[in-house]
């Protein structure tokens, strides 16, 4: 997936330099969509994602007692 993101950006830059603007912009938006998708995958994947369970307070059922 990361390879696809970088490939899309590389092609967008090369098309922007040599080729048509329309194709470059299409690749640019393709890269944007892939990047957002990969970012969401990375942060929500239960196995390898970057979850932050320490701020998910709803799963902490233990009431805090103050003395």
């Amino acid at each position, binding site marked *: 997936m990361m390879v696809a993101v970088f490939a899309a*950006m590389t092609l*967008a*830059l*090369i098309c922007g330099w040599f080729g048509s*603007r329309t194709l470059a912009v299409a690749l*640019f938006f393709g890269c944007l969509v892939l990047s957002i998708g990969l970012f969401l995958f*990375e*942060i929500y994947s239960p196995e390898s994602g*970057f979850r932050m369970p320490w701020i998910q307070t709803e799963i902490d059922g233990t009431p805090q007692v103050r003395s």
Partner: protein
Amino acid sequence: MIDSHRSMTTQRFLASLNYIYLLLVMFVIAGILTTAMTLQYVKGELPCPLCLLERVAMLGVCFGIMLNFRRGFSYQNTGFSLLFTIVLLVIAVRQTLLDIYPRPGHEYIGSAIFGIHMPVWSIIIALCLLTAYAIKLAILGGDEYLRGAEPSEFPAIKKIADIMILYVIAICVINLVSVILQCGFGECHTFNYKLLQ
């Protein structure tokens, strides 16, 4: 007649300022990406997936600037740059929140530069980009003369910009090869280069 000539001179000066501004932004981003790549290849600090996405976001900012130099100035191109600036900010904030209290076994953050780690630098960079674009719009405005001035009217700036664009494209190609070596066609990890094992 004299007023009209003076006005034309001022407009040309402001248009040149606009292109110099864009060139400086690209120069700074190229410098940041070069530093990140130096840390990767010299110190052996492999980038994490979110770090790689931050690099893509910076290259996306350069894409909008490149179109301004190749196809003439347009606020649509500025929009392209701003889109990826926002992506950069969101990813960097998320990564910094993650690094404040790392998940056990995922304490890898990387070297600090001037006492600040790369995700925090990314937030600073994104905020600087947004601030710089806001200041530029406030000072230069959205006037027609910026769109009317072709980059070819400023040959020295255009020449430097072309070299800088080619350098950014080279950075992107090197990163693509590096990502293929590090991640293969699957998920990315920071342990080693997957295809060099």
